[in-house]
């Protein structure tokens, strides 16, 4: 039984295989439209995340399968005090595969031990969100044609942004990848990411507070939101907030082949005026997320096409 709890569980070969399946789905969606007929996906969302849940549901419907589940814990047996283990074991009797979102870190791992069917982590608190990383990887692959020889800028809240941490881990396995980590002092990448991932693998990186100074070097700019509540004082927030807003003016210094990514939802960190720029990829990322979730469901259900 295979599950996807943490992106690190997938080898480079696994990721390559998922990418190839996703590319084949994009090429010929009709070929895949009935392959999960009579299979059921349970979406167990103990906290609301409409975007991720709809992506999983759309993925399963496009494979010809069915979906059941709940979208918040109030409407589940968790509200009555049932354990994650028991919920997973029960739902495993009804569904062929489970996608679980939970506010507590590690809940999908607990579920995977008793469910009896594959469990996909659809986000566990601020911990892991592997299918977002799969969406990011397919986007990079489609935009750049490869994962090698890329300079990746990560900008915004790099301290609490789990998508950035997972992306750094996933991309650090490829050749000649460099990182430019752009954030306010308060929101720098945690030390363990630098020591355990970047330095352990000998990956070059620089840290900077300036987006303007670095944007011209990048192949990819991965934007995240700088949230007001992350700052110790209001004055620092007000001083810095506009530094990390991407505007058409800042993009003038960027390369023509830059790809701008964002895990969404966006608040104001990318100006709406950037949306029409051909370098904006964040809505493509949403679509790519659905294709990668389709590929993942097929892999975990061991459906061959």
């Amino acid at each position, binding site marked *: 039984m295979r599950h996807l709890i943490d992106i690190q569980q997938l080898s480079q070969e696994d990721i390559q295989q998922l990418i190839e399946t996703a590319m084949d789905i994009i090429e010929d969606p009709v070929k895949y439209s009935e392959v999960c007929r009579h299979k059921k996906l349970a979406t167990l969302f103990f906290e609301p995340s409409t975007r991720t849940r709809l992506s999983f549901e759309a993925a399963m419907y496009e494979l010809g399968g069915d979906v059941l589940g709940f979208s918040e814990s109030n409407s589940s047996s968790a509200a009555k005090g049932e354990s994650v283990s028991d919920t997973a074991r029960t739902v495993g009797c009804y569904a062929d595969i489970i996608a679980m979102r939970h*506010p*507590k870190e*590690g809940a999908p791992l*607990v579920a995977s031990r008793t469910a009896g069917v594959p469990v996909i982590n659809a986000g566990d*608190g601020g*911990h892991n969100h592997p299918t977002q990383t799969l969406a990011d990887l397919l986007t990079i692959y489609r935009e750049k044609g490869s994962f090698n020889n890329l300079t990746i800028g990560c900008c915004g809240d790099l301290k609490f942004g789990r998508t950035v941490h997972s992306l750094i881990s996933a991309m650090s396995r490829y050749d000649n990848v460099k990182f430019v980590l752009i954030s306010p002092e308060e929101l720098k990448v945690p030390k363990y990411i630098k020591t*355990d991932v970047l330095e352990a693998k000998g990956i070059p990186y620089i840290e900077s507070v300036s987006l303007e100074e670095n944007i011209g070097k990048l192949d990819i700019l991965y934007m995240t939101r700088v949230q007001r509540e992350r700052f110790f004082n209001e004055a620092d927030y007000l001083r810095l907030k506009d530094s990390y807003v991407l505007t058409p003016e800042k993009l003038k210094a960027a390369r023509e082949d830059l790809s701008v990514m964002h895990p969404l939802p966006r608040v104001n960190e990318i100006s709406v005026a950037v949306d029409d720029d051909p370098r904006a990829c964040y809505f493509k990322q949403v679509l790519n997320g659905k294709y990668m979730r389709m590929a993942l469901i097929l892999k975990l259900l061991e459906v061959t096409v």
Partner: protein
Amino acid sequence: MIIGQIKDGIVLDHITAGKSLEIYEVLGLDKLDCTIATIQYAESKKMGRKDIIKIGQVIDINFDVLGYLDPGITVNIIRDGKLAKRERLTLPERVTDIIKCKNPRCITSVEQELRQEFRLADRERKIYRCIYCDSEAKKQS
């Protein structure tokens, strides 16, 4: 100070000085009804000072617990007054129900029946991480 030799039993040697009482407690030695000697701050050529525990009975020891608490310990198993086996401990890959995860966002904070499991993430720096939330537990000592 003279403490007699044991015929059948276990000698835990090279315990970090001052740690023997903690190990005594964690191994549940107070529940045994055999002779037990705890020697603290004994002179040691290798360590300067060390603790030693002599147990007058061969018991099952959880080497993972011992290795986590004090990986420098040597376990000598004595049978018929002779050294039958010597084990040098190392940090275990995984420890269960020894460390408690302190991350309030971890699933173990709300589901009390879950076992507390930690994996060795970095042997050199003796760093263990919760298998559920990856929070770091600092090695004691």
